[in-house]
């Protein structure tokens, strides 16, 4: 009886198993890496040149976000404070603290402090802070409870699908205008975020863009 299977078929099963397992491992690895918050850098918490604590400044001292991030209401970019802003207080307060050495050096030499960037939109994405904070979106919605952070980390994935979650249903996030910079604000007991959001959405005609051109130019 002739051989039904040629000789090379002896190894085909093994080859298939090896091949499939490699592909399978690749898939698992890919999903492990790309589908987890690590890829979107949620939790990214680099060491900053000066150990600035938002918890101390906001929570304990009660400073408003806009004291330092002064242009957030008018510009697309929410600025990091200039050395001058830091020194406005720190020439008086803790003027000799070793933690502030970098800032004092910067003030003396005129060289800027190189803060490490945490939140980064891709170059082809044009995010605008001003339009969000003026139309009922709080800092908290994208940056998390910065007021409690000793060292700032990335709290939200800030991926495109995450952006669209809100652009498609802004009512889940809209707040009363007075509470935008209140990092501890919660809807009052018995008040539904969704209902209140719907009310704002209709009243202010909030209609966030979901076409490409809204963010990509």
């Amino acid at each position, binding site marked *: 009886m002739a051989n039904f299977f040629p000789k090379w078929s002896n190894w085909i099963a093994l080859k298939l198993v090896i091949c499939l397992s490699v592909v399978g491992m690749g898939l698992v690895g890919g999903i492990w890496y790309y589908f987890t918050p690590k890829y979107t850098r949620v939790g990214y918490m680099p060491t900053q040149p000066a150990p600035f604590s938002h918890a101390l400044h906001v929570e304990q001292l009660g400073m408003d976000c806009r004291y330092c991030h002064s242009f957030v*209401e*008018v510009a*697309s970019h929410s600025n990091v404070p*200039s*050395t001058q802003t830091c020194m406005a207080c720190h020439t008086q307060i803790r003027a000799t603290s070793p933690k502030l050495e970098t800032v004092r050096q910067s003030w003396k030499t005129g060289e800027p*402090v190189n803060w*490490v960037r945490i939140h*980064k939109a891709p170059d082809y994405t044009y995010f605008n802070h001003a339009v969000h904070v003026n*139309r009922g979106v709080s800092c908290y919605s994208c940056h998390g409870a910065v007021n409690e952070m000793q060292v700032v980390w990335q709290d939200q994935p800030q991926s495109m699908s995450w952006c669209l979650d809100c652009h498609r249903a802004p009512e889940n996030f809209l707040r009363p205008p007075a509470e935008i910079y209140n990092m501890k604000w919660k809807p009052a007991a018995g008040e539904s975020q969704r209902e209140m959001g719907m009310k704002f959405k209709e009243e202010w005609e909030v209609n966030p863009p979901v076409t*490409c051109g809204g963010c990509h130019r």
Partner: protein
Amino acid sequence: MKRIVNHPARDAQPSIWRSLRELENDPEFAKHLAAEFPRGADVYQDSGLSKRDFLKLMGASMALAGVGLTGCRRPESHLVPFTKGVEWTVPGKFLYYATSMPVRQGALPLIATTSDGRPTKLEGNPLHPVSSGGTDAFAQAAILDLYDPHRSRNMTENGKGSDLASFDAFLQSVSQSGGKGVGFLVEKANSPTRDRLRAELEKNFPGLVWAEYEPLGDSEAAAAADAAFGVGTKLIPKFERADVVLALDSDFLNPAESGIGYASGFSARRNPDQMGAPMNRLYVVENHFTVTGGMADHRLRCKTSEIGALARALGTLIAAKTGDGGLAAVVGAYPDQPAHFDEAWVKECAADLLANPGRTLVLTGPQTPAAVQVLAHAINSALGNLGATLIALQSAAPATATISDLAKAITAGTIQTLFILGGNPAYNAPAELGFAALLAKVPAVVRLGLFEDETSKLSRWHIPAAHFLESWGDARSFEGTLTAIQPMILPLWGGLSELDILSKLLGGGPVDGPELVRATFEKLAPQDLLAEVGTMDLLWNSFLRVGFLPETQFPPAAAQLAVATAAALAAKAPAIKDGLELVFLQSSSVDDGRYANNSWLLETPDFVTKVTWDNAVLVSPATAAALGIKANNFGKFEEIAEKIGNDVNYDLVADIVEISDGKTSIQAAAIVAPGHADDSLSLALGYGRKSVSALMENVGFDAYPLRSATIPRFTSGVTLKVTDKNYPLAQTQEHRSMEGRDLVREGTLDRYKEDPAFAQTMGMDGHIPPNISLYTHPALTSKEQWGMTVDLNTCTGCNACVVACQAENNVPVVGKDQVRKNRDMAWIRIDRYFAGEKEDPEMLAQAIMCQHCENAPCETVCPVNATVHSEDGLNLMAYNRCIGTRYCANNCPWKVRRFNYFDYNQRPIDQLYWGPLAKKGMADSLKMAKNPNVTVRMRGVMEKCTFCIQRIEEAKISRLVEAGPTPSSETPISTFKVACQQACPNDSIVFGDIADPESRVARLQKSERGYTMFKYVNASPRVTYLTRIKNPNPNMPGADRVGMANGAPHGSSHGGDKSHGSDKSHGTHEPAAPHAPAAPHQPTEAH
């Protein structure tokens, strides 16, 4: 029953055509048209890397990346705030400052956009009295000049590096020596501060020689005005008052020749719908097609050297009719020269001028011989135009020596130290002076220049110049208004300005601020204005804020023709030699050579020839045939391809010709130019620079060696010899041809009055059935719906919008080789059409950008949804989705989509073909020139006009920010302009919200002159074109051919079927079509 609508077939003899090959129906050309994307982008050259090698390498690098996964990690980046806050600066927001660009006509008022301290865009200053807010291509490209990485950065003495301290010491030694033998050679600047410092310097340095030289200056015009009306008289035409305009060798509609704002009144009177004032009529006499010639109602081809004789004949006719003694005297003094022109044309033109006394204008060009210009002045005077359409002002510019005077002084040995501030005389001085050789006779030559060029090499000192965006200064606009030049940035490479050097010579210390300009300002400030404003500080601040000082125009002068001096000048008309003449043109790309390193301008096609990266000798078809110049060397492609080492697309291969005046000869490529005068050659100046920078190498041909100081406009009596050499030219005129389907439309004023909507039923548009679409519309739900109109009646094709778009949208430059492969990237292009006979056609210009079709054909074919529609009617392009199939471009009827075949932003244009491992990156200074609000595209993605979506979004966002927690629809959207619209000097492009019936664009789109292209493909474009209306003089020879680009009125070609177009039988399914079945462009109806 099925309805098949075919594209209209191409006519055997097209009435509208873009190139001679199209007119002649070359079969090779038809093949070329069919290919949207010509040959291979997939070959790497010069790297020895095949596609297979590349894939291997990619595989290896992917594997390596996989091992560490390091390639997937974002690198750490930094946020770098200011140490100290800067006044007015908000990171991420633009700041706008008023400044101006010094140009030879005066000042070009500008608003500079700065982004984090970097100027990134220049716009016209609409507040300025001369400006309508427009700019020209040169002003738009000034940003690239500022950031040009080839700019000179180091001071050198005798070719070796030096520093400011030793230069200061040198200047001190000059000023302490009492200034014996000091000469200056400067460019025309119209700067009161420079004039003031010069006067002070002349006091300190007796015997100082101050010479001004501009290769394209108006010294001839000034000489004529001085002789006709007295020294310092400046004539300002008032186009808004002129019914008939005659341009003799004048390209006044080109802002690069006449200056921004000079002809703004013309387009206002070009509107056929204007109440109260009839549409003006334009006669043009010229040797080559200019943008002004393209706008003409009647254009006469005439050798430039014979325009004087033509003006004399015209003057004779007018003098006889008006009995004006002054004109008769001037005409009588002008020598009778033999000439050949259409006398009937001149007669009818004279009759039309005489029929409109005091409402006409006769204009000449800045370099037209002074004797001819004096004739024009006398004609204007006889026609009663002085004080009516022509206003005389008394300018106060001090007298200067010419470059010829300076050359004499150098030859005599009286110049010991020569300061050459700007300019480039070693390259562009009149040939007979031998200026380069003369420089060797001067012991110390100090050269201030933006580039280390021909003159720097012959100078002892080369000092890097500060760009006008880096220095303080002032200038007077052409009618005298004092205009500020403010620095937008500190000198990038430590350059000095002219004023710095003059001030140092006067013993002043280093001047960083506006002190010098302010001192002049305080002298010039009008007292009543000062009293009104209060203090000098307030007045100064308002000067800087608005960019000019009101009430500083030149005072009016009494314009009375001085017959004796005028006749004396007319008698000195240059002698004309027989035979060929060579006319020297201002280049639309490099001006007189000063922008030779500006790649934006080099790649912008010439207005008329559409040649990029080169200039070429223009010859009329008849003269070319007589001299044996071929329109194209079809048979030689393979040969040339071997020579230039690249696969050559079907593009122009021109003959090289040798032009000689008997003593000197030059070689240049020659192309056949429709509408050119016979026995005449034209060549643009400014090309053929040698060994200056890599970009300038082998670009074009130098015409200066044949140019003399006595007649700068032309050289008569030259000879031409065709050599056996060839030269490939990159000409965009055949790129993206839409195959002549009544894309550009025109008619006469009479036809328009009879049937204002005649253009809407032209060609195929009279036959189309009601629109139906199988595709569902995207929901156009936004309150605003964006649209645009382009008025063909005022669009001259001047290129300002093309360069403005490039600057605004970070459009890359691709280089000559790539342009030859149809890969130029311009988002807005000017299609130039000829209509009629090739010897004497009409010319029309049409700006084409993405039409943002509502039923966009590109969107339906994209496999990855990279191009989609927005709810406000924009056709969007998401670069990060694009995978580069190019289906969209193939399906675009307008051919406006551009593909990044290479990393044009990351690779210099001579390294595009290097392999994937070759060095990438952009010069740091060029990064600073980019608009931060527009993505810089990478290799492999499609791009196209976005209607300046960054400006639209900016306006929408500011409205929402302003609205805050209130209904957003109650806050109006702030007004804004898109980049091409803002740059347009004639207001031809209007953009806005078509959903608002009150908006200007909505009203224009409803105009009866409006039509959309390719209406029958039912794409519903958002761009409407307004038909060009011509205003011919019925008595003129050839008047029946004017405004007939699209053929005779539609009805007559169909046997007088007057109801055509509105005929109900169209669009129904009745097979009984009333017109002849042979009509090539009718819908076929089949069962």
